[in-house]
C-alpha cells in the first residue's frame, strides 16, 4: 500500500492555479524527487499535503487517513513532517531546545525529549554545539538543525523543501549523505531540489511540476531524457 496518495489535488489562489490536478503516490521507503521551475507549485504542494492550505480540490491520503481538513500539527502527529525552504530556527532557543520542541510531539518528559534530541543532533552531526543559540548558526548548520528538529518528531514521511539551497558543494554533499543514510534507515522522503545532479543521485522516482501541473513522472534516467522536461525545465544538453 502506498504511504502517501495525492489524488487530483488543485489549489487556486483567486484565478491562479498554483496546483492543478496533481496526482501521484509514494511507496514506503522511497525517495521522491519533486522538481520544476520557480513558481511551478512545489512548495504549494507541500503546503497542501501538510495542512497549511486546504486543497481546493482533490484528496491527500497518508497511511490510509484522509488528510483534508487536518491541521499541520495533526499531520505531524500522524507521522508526516516538513522542513522549510526559508529556514525557520527558533532563534532565541538553543540548538538542543529547538530539537526538543520537535521531540516533545512524542513525549511529555523533558529528559526523554533531550535524549531524543541529542540523538537526532548526532544524526545530522550537530551534536558538538547543543547549547548555541539557533539564531547564531551559519546557514549550513541551520539547514541541519531544521532536519534534526523534523526528525525528532519521529516521522514516517519527511518532506524536505530545498534543504540544499544556499549551501556550498561540501555542505550539499553532507546533506546528500544524510538523506541517503535516512533512506537506509527506512525513512520515506520527498525532496524538493534545484540541484539536478543531487536530485538524480538520490531519487528513486521524480515528479516534474510545471505551471502547477504534473508534467512528467518516472525514474531519474527517464526524466532526464524526457523531451517535455528538457524543454520546460532542464534545457538542452550542451555538448
Amino acid at each position, binding site marked *: 500500500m502506498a504511504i502517501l496518495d495525492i489524488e487530483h489535488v488543485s489549489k487556486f489562489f483567486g484565478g491562479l492555479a498554483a496546483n492543478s490536478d496533481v496526482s501521484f503516490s509514494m511507496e514506503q521507503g522511497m525517495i521522491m524527487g519533486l522538481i520544476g521551475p520557480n513558481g511551478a507549485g512545489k512548495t504549494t504542494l507541500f503546503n497542501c499535503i501538510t495542512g497549511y492550505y486546504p486543497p481546493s480540490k482533490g484528496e491527500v491520503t497518508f497511511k490510509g487517513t484522509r488528510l483534508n481538513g487536518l491541521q499541520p500539527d495533526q499531520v505531524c502527529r500522524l507521522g508526516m513532517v516538513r522542513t522549510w525552504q526559508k529556514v525557520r530556527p527558533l532563534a532565541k532557543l538553543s540548538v538542543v531546545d529547538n530539537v526538543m*520542541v520537535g521531540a*516533545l510531539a512524542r513525549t*511529555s518528559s*523533558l529528559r526523554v525529549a533531550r535524549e531524543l534530541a541529542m540523538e537526532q543532533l548526532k544524526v545530522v552531526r550537530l551534536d558538538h554545539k547543543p547549547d548555541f543559540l539557533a539564531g547564531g548558526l551559519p546557514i549550513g548548520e541551520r539547514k541541519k538543525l531544521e532536519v534534526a528538529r523534523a526528525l525528532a518528531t519521529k516521522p514516517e514521511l519527511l518532506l524536505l523543501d530545498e534543504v540544499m539551497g544556499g549551501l556550498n558543494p561540501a555542505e550539499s554533499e553532507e546533506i546528500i549523505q544524510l538523506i541517503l543514510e535516512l533512506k537506509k534507515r527506512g525513512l520515506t522522503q520527498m525532496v524538493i531540489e534545484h540541484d539536478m545532479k543531487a536530485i538524480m543521485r538520490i531519487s528513486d522516482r521524480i515528479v516534474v511540476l510545471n505551471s502547477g501541473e504534473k508534467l512528467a513522472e518516472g525514474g531519474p534516467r527517464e526524466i532526464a531524457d524526457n523531451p517535455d522536461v528538457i524543454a520546460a525545465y532542464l534545457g538542452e544538453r550542451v555538448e
Partner: protein
Amino acid sequence: MDRRPLLSRAPRGFSVLGLVLFVAAIAALAAFPSFVKKPYVLHMGVVLFLAIIQGQAWNVIGGYAGQYSVGHAAFFGIGAYVTMMLLELNKTAPWVGIWAAIAAAVLLSLVIGSITFRLRGPYFVLASISVTEIIRLAALHFKDFTRGAEGFLVTEIPTLKIGATEIEFFTKRPFYFAALGLAVVTIIANWAVQHSKLGYYFQAIREDQDAAHSLGINPAFYKNVALAISAAFTAAAGGFYAMFVKFIDPNTVFGLDVSVQFVLICIIGGIGTILGPVIGAMVLVPLSEILRNPKGLVQLGIVSSDSGFVRFIEANLSNAHMLVYGILVVVVILFAPEGVLGVIRRLATRLRRRTPSRGRTEPAATA
C-alpha cells in the same frame, strides 16, 4: 566581531545557587516586618509584591508565548470585582471568593482568547486593548449590577482562623505576608511552566508560529492555555488588590493604564525570564511612588522634609508619572531591549570573558 552567543536562554534544570538565593530572599523578606514596623514601608512592600505577581502573570503569555497582551486589566478587574462583590453582597470571605474570581478570569480568558488569537502581532495587541475597553465601559454602564463609577468599598474583611490563630486584616502586616506568599507561589508556578513541555511549546510559538505548527503544536490551543494560566494569576492579583486598597471602580481596575503597567514591568525588567519581572517591579514601583508621592521619602527618613528634591518633583512631575513611564520605555527599548536583566547579563558575560578562561566560554546558564 565575536559571533558566539552571549547567552543561551535555555532553561537548564535546577540551579542550586539560584534555589539557595531564592529561599534566602524569601526568608529575609519574611523576617523583614519583625524589624521594620513602619506601615508605610510595609505598604510599599505589598505594592512591590503585587507588581511582581502582575509581571510574572503577564510573562507567561507575553514573555514565553510572545503574545503582547495590553488587555490584562480585563483579568485584573474581573478578579477584583468578583472578590469584592462576593464579599460585599454575599459576605463570602476573600480567600474563598478569590477562587471564584480565578475561575471567572479563566473562563473570560477562553472567550477573549478565542476572539483575539485569530490575530497576530500588532493586530492582536489592538484587539486585546479593545476587548478590555469594552469590559471597562460595560462595567461603567451596567450600574444596577456593578454600581458603575460609584465603585465598591470594603466594609469589613472577616477574621481568618487557621487552627487556633486568628488573623485580622486591620494592619498592613497580614497583607504583607499574604502578598509575599502569593508572589512566591506565582514565581514557582512561572518556573514550573518554563521548565516543562508547556514552556517549550509557548516559546516555540513565540519564536515562529508556523514552524511550531509543523512540529505538532496547535498554536491556538497552547496560546489559550498560556492566557488561562496568566489570567488566573492576574485575577488573584486583582482580588488581592481590591482587598488591600479597599476601593475599586471600573477605571482603577479595568483602565488601560493598568494593562500598560503589566507590560511595563516585564519590558523594563526583561521579558521571558523569571528574574525580569522581579527587577522590573523593583524599578517601576519605587519610581512611580517617588513621582506620585515624594513625601514618602521624607516618611522613610531618606530626605529631610524641606528637601529641594521633593519640592522639585511635587512642583514639576507630580502628575507626570505616565510621561516618565513613556520616556523610560523609550530608553529601555533603545539601549536595553532585553531589559535591565539583559544589561546585567551582558556585563557579567563580558567580565567573565575578560578574565582569562580555559579558552572557551561556557554558555551562560539561566536562573
